[in-house]
């Protein structure tokens, strides 16, 4: 009878398409919004994720997340290096400053200063040039989005000169740094150059990046660093989580996305529930006559659930496909949308939500067909 159930479903073209559209719409809306939200939140931790060699980030105890920095004195570096289990520890500067091109374009940039000797903290993903070129005097690496923002329409090229706080900076590389939360260009330079650009201050070191000795558990080491130096030390995972958590807790962003996702869910459930109920109601007489002819309640139940599952699967496939296509297209259209993608976790979560929608949607309908009296078939 499964074939009969499917023929019934596909035979009612209008309702079938309505149901598939409802599920597809809700799948698309939910997965799209959750993906953008997840992408946006992971952007808040971009610089942490890009500094891949570091196991542990050490900072002033008052720092809660990566964008709010309490500088430390350079002497803290030595104290961190002195902790047992530290393989190496290097300074890291992070700040916002203003840059302008020779053409006069003025632009706020995220300035990242990495250890002169080791260049630890530079993203390994380069579009043009090499991270090692940072060792040249006045050298900076800018991210692709920043380059295209400051020199719109121009081909990627090295050797361009900008001024940061009236000091010369030469572009020696273009990176594919992870998109930051703010869409400012990301500029890497040597720690010493960064100090030049911002001018000398008593406290200027933003973070100390630490690598644990092989075999050393980063969590334990972080605990030890904190205990011995009085600074705050977090594994990169914990620091990224703290940063993302900060944005989730302290901004209205999750609420906005949450509302849209909830709307997708509710509209999906309502539209699909309603349409499916009407579909079953219109076929009630047919189901009744099948019952009269000796089709068991179990079989009828299976038929209705099969119809529901087919609607859910087809609608979900369309919706999730649209969502993936959306990110594929938008990342090509706008560089500011790069890095947003459909995560498998989101696809899975949306599938679960769709399952819940379809279960809710079929509950009333299933009840209706289960209790329908086969005797209705004799009524006019």
């Amino acid at each position, binding site marked *: *009878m499964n*074939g*009969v159930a499917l*023929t*019934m479903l*596909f*035979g*009612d073209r209008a309702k079938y398409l309505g149901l598939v559209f409802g599920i597809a719409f809700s799948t698309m809306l939910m997965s799209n919004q959750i993906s953008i939200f997840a992408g946006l939140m992971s952007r808040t931790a971009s610089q942490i994720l890009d500094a891949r060699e570091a196991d542990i980030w050490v900072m002033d105890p008052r720092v809660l997340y990566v964008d709010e920095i309490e500088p430390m004195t350079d002497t803290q570096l030595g104290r961190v290096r002195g902790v047992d289990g530290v393989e190496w520890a290097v300074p890291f500067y992070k700040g916002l400053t203003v840059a302008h091109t020779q053409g006069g374009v003025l632009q706020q940039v995220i300035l990242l200063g990495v250890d002169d000797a080791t260049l630890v903290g530079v993203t390994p993903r380069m579009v043009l040039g090499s991270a090692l070129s940072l060792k040249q005097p006045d050298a900076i690496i800018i991210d692709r989005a920043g380059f295209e923002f400051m020199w719109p329409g121009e081909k990627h090229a090295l050797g361009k000169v900008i001024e940061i706080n009236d000091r010369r900076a030469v572009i020696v590389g273009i990176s594919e740094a992870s998109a930051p939360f703010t869409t400012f260009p990301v500029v890497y330079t040597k720690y010493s150059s960064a100090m030049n650009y911002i001018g000398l201050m008593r406290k200027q070191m933003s973070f100390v990046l630490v690598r644990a000795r092989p075999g050393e558990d980063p969590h334990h080491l972080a605990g030890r660093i904190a205990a011995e130096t009085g600074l705050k030390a977090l594994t990169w995972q914990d620091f990224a989580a703290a940063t993302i958590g900060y944005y989730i807790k302290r901004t209205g962003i999750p609420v906005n996305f949450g509302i849209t996702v909830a709307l997708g869910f509710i509209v999906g459930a309502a539209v699909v529930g309603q349409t499916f109920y009407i579909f079953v109601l219109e076929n009630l*007489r*047919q189901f*009744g*006559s*099948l*019952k*009269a*002819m*000796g*089709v*068991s*309640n179990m*079989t009828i139940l299976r038929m209705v659930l099969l119809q529901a599952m087919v609607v859910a699967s087809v609608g979900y496939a369309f919706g999730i496909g649209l969502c993936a296509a959306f990110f594929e297209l938008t990342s090509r259209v706008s560089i500011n949308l790069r890095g947003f993608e459909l995560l498998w976790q989101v696809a899975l979560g949306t599938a679960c939500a769709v399952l819940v929608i379809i279960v809710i949607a079929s509950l009333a309908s299933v009840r209706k067909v289960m209790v329908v009296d*086969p*005797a209705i*078939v*004799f*009524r*006019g």
Partner: protein
Amino acid sequence: MTDPSMAVRCRGITKSFPAGDGIVEVLHAIDLDIPAGELTMLVGPSGCGKTTLISIIAGILGPTHGTVEACGVPLTKLRDSEKVAFRRKAIGFVFQQYNLLPALTAAENAAIPLVAAGMPMAKAAQQSAAILDRIGMGKHIDKLPSQLSGGQQQRVAIARAVVHAPNLVVCDEPTAALDAETGQTVMTILKEAALAADRAVIVVTHDNRIYHFADRIAAMEDGRIRSVRTATAGQFLEVA
């Protein structure tokens, strides 16, 4: 006690429905035998309980009191699931409203009882197509119900009622939705296709223009069987 030539044996059937605060009894102590190999008509004024009675005979409704034996099976002793299986195997239905599935073709609709019994649709539809062919519907096997006239749809329903070779075919007002001429055609086909030595056909009807198709007429009135007459040379004679 059990007479194998009797397809249906009802004894002391009463049926009550809840109505308002109390209950109303719509069938009162009905005794009725329906022999195999005959077309029995159940006639009577509207509301006298004809539909209720054949629903009970077909195992769709349970009586409040009394026993029904259909095709040798003590229906009133069966559990619900056994009744479902009994209906699937032993009964063919023809309804006033045809009740065909709108998305299925004529052949697929007529094949439903076989599919319900587990036969793959392709094979079942072949069998039902052969029956449709025999009752003059050969050209229409691939049409949807919406592409067929009422008489043609009722013929599909007749094919569906006999495709699985049931022991009993029950029809509720099979001609009520058809014009007089089509009604005659449909009854002719029903009698030819459905009646067999080991099968009884029960037709509930208001329509005295089709009485002449009956081998036996049970007249009901107000929840009781008033008379049962058999046809002899076109005349209906009262049986006890």
